[in-house]
């Protein structure tokens, strides 16, 4: 009895240490964004600012077009989410419910493409976009992410769990494939679609390498690139860097807080990535 309790205490200590290590940078980022310059650089470090410098945020917006970065990021993340969700939905439906020649081959080819890491093809993608003259455009930013084999597979496993007789019943009831998708498949797969949408939006929000490659104008920057540029522009003003970082992370953190149940459920249910 005593032994078990000791084990529980020990595991809580370990959990606390790791939780602290994970959460501390976030907390320090938020607090640091509200300090003055001396406090962020003093040794021993300050944890709680004496006076909350809310003006840091105003300075950040004055120094760099963060409003524009926000707009760009929201736009590209939304467009990639909506379009890739739509494409994955149709693709997954076709692979699950339709019978056509070469389905097995297509499935295999796509599965093997899934094995290719994104970084490996990033330069060919860059060349394509450059040749198309799409550098520094929104289209160039979103084009490579409008389809996703991974999301399609995720949805395929989701749709596969719906009994095939439901599709047959809909066919006999006179529904077209389009009716079936919107009136039956989508309402029945809400949580799967939601997970895919959320994952897609978050990865769109966090994207860094691709927008860095295809944009170099300030007006086309996304938040993460803006942030890294701002960090060097702001030079030694660490309090402003921290405030800007907070601005970048906050919306996604809020999303996590609101939808954490769905995110966890989606990840747990995901039997492809495991």
């Amino acid at each position, binding site marked *: 009895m005593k032994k078990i309790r000791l084990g529980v205490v020990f595991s809580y200590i370990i959990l606390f240490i790791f939780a602290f290590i994970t959460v501390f940078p976030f907390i320090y980022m938020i607090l640091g964004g509200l300090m003055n310059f001396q406090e962020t650089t003093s040794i021993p470090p300050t944890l709680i600012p004496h006076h909350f410098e809310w003006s840091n945020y105003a300075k950040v917006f004055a120094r760099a077009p963060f409003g524009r970065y926000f707009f760009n990021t929201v736009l590209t993340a939304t467009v990639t989410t909506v379009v890739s969700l739509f494409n994955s939905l149709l693709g997954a439906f076709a692979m699950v419910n339709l019978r056509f020649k070469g389905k097995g081959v297509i499935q295999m080819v796509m599965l093997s493409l899934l094995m290719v890491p994104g970084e490996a093809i990033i330069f060919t993608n860059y060349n394509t976009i450059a040749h198309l003259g799409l550098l520094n455009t929104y289209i160039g930013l979103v084009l490579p992410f409008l389809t996703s084999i991974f999301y399609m597979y995720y949805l395929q496993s989701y749709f596969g769990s719906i*009994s095939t*007789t*439901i599709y047959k*019943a809909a066919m006999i*009831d006179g529904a077209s494939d389009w*009716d079936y998708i919107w009136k039956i498949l989508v309402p029945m797969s809400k949580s799967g679609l939601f997970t895919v949408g959320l994952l897609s939006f978050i990865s769109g929000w966090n994207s860094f390498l691709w927008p860095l490659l295809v944009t170099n104008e300030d007006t086309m920057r996304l938040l993460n690139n803006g942030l890294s540029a701002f960090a060097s522009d702001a030079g030694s003003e660490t309090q402003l860097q921290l405030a800007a970082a907070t601005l970048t992370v906050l919306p996604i953190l809020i999303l996590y807080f609101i939808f954490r149940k769905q995110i966890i459920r989606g990840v747990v249910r995901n039997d492809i990535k495991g």
Partner: protein
Amino acid sequence: MDNNKFVEVKNLRKVYDNGHEAIKNVSFSVKKGDLVCLLGPSGCGKTTILNILAGLLNPTSGEILFDGKSVVNVEPKDRHIGYVFQNYALYPHMTVLQNVMFPLIVGKNKKSKPEAQKIAEKYMELTQITELADQKPGNLSGGQQQRVAIARALVQEPKILLMDEPLSNLDARLRLKIREEIRSLVKSVGITTLFVTHDQEEALSIGDKIILFNDGVIQQDDLGENFYLEPNNYFVANFVGNPVIDNFKVTKTDDELQGTDFTIKLADLDESRFKRSIPNGEYLLSVRPENIVPASDGILNVEVDDVELIGRERILKFTHDDSQARSLISLEVPVNHGDQVNLKMRLDRVFLFTPDGERVY
């Protein structure tokens, strides 16, 4: 238009991609307004046939006519059929009313919502699910889901209703009740119905006629009682009947059937029941348990292994030729476990089959 051949299937064959021949040259027809049972053991091809009739599967070859018109290349939705699936296939995110209305608000002939609702409510009343209108299928019992599925199948007023083992997910008592309801419902609507089942009792009780399948071949296409009284072959005799038929190996000589421990004179058999003249050799003699009963002038002496009471009657079980056989007797006849009895066969009711199953008597 031939009402005797409202549904007509000619030389139907289905070979699956893996080479399995599920349906081998099947032909049958169904009279308008009839309720026909497609009966057979699991894997005999009966559900495949239903799926082909519905257009959910394409036949490898053969012809299907509904009301005299070929439907082989017609989409399921244009075949004017209703289909009740074994698992009901209700849309779980819709209420009962929405489920029943669904066929009316999609596709080419879609109706306005109020009109669709009116028709749906009529069929919900017919199937007695009006009070369940706002429930989701997940909250319904198996029997209620069944009714919703039937209402949804009927709401398009199809010409043909296809039902795939619709009762197999229900408990025994409910099954009896619902099968009577289904019969009276389809009869009152007057719809031609094909009903797939593996349960012979179900088929015998509700079918106007029964088509018995095995191995993708029709074994018998007949009225229910004929499966019992005049089985086409050994498979039919053994598939239909409860308790199952008794089979005895016999050797035919010039004037006798010689079994293990018993002999039957050919002269005692009914000459007119022979299908053809048969050579001497090995045959199988099959007797329904109620036609082999204890009698003082019995020809087969056996020891009773076990007595099973089934209501009004009792089954005497005995071993003959290393296999178990049964005799069905009235409750009043005093026979106990371990008794020696003489059994007599009603020779005008026995069947004789060749070793490969052909019926010759």
